[in-house]
């Protein structure tokens, strides 16, 4: 299935969880916040949240800033 991750289209197998997706792109869950289709996914739901065809994910982190 197609998932858009930070603006890029990526292919995942059906039933992939958010946690698995993050792991597949080397993202440390402790350091990110995630929106699924513009709605925030609480960190506690990363494991159970299953992704669906055409989902859009926005994954953000803290960077240097003033």
């Amino acid at each position, binding site marked *: 299935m197609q998932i858009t*991750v*930070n*603006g*890029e289209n990526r292919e995942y197998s059906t039933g992939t969880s958010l946690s698995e997706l993050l792991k597949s*792109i*080397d*993202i*440390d869950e402790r*350091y*990110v*916040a*995630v*929106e699924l289709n513009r709605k*925030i996914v*609480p*960190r506690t739901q990363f494991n159970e949240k299953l992704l669906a065809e055409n989902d859009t994910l*926005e*994954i*953000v*982190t*803290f*960077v*240097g*800033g*003033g």
Partner: protein
Amino acid sequence: MADTVLKLGKYEFKSRLFVGTGKYETLDLMKEALEASGSEVVTVAVRRANVGCKPGESLLDYIDQKKYTILPNTAGCYSADEAVRTARLAREMGISDLIKLEVLGDKDTLLPDPVDTLKATEILVKDGFTVLVYTSDDPIMAKRLEDAGATSVMPAGAPIGSGQGILNPNNIRIILETLSVPVIVDAGVGTASDVTAAMELGCVGVLLNTGIAGAKDPVQMARAMKLACESGRLAYLSGRIPKKLYANASSPLKDF
């Protein structure tokens, strides 16, 4: 007059210098400068995580959260909607409900958009955030932000990153007289005397980034800013002498 701690909502700080984490050549240098600044509050920005390449080190690995309170900003947001979205994502990182709200109106001047800044303040206050809001030095706007429930109003001394110092001290004075919430000068600080000037006016703190990160020796400049902040605060608390037109001799004028 002894100093008290700085209270911002439920947060308390001894240091009155707030520093940014942007524009450092390396994270090690940033860490050293933060240390030298004596600051207890450091600002960070929220951006898309790198996807598809091996992750670099995280900024958070370099900020000891036992020592520093993280203040996420909404820098780079040009509408209330974007800023609110960014603030909510920042809170979801699970660190705090503090937000440095910044809604910009223009890419060249980086001046705040007053209408959307007010709108976003109202939404975020209602949503339970501790809002420290960046604004211009307009006293009326500052008052409107206080009325909207901002925990601190943070007027710019000069445009972001410009290093021009406190361009209109009179406006800052009016803001200080009009508002009851803590006022922090945010942006425009170029060197130590700018920090002192803001603190002498009675601001409760100064927030800066480029002034340290862009200096030739950021670590030494961080220390200079720390001392300047303390100096200005002490001078403010001590009550300076009024400025007079004519001389007033320091030594007794009587003959032997």
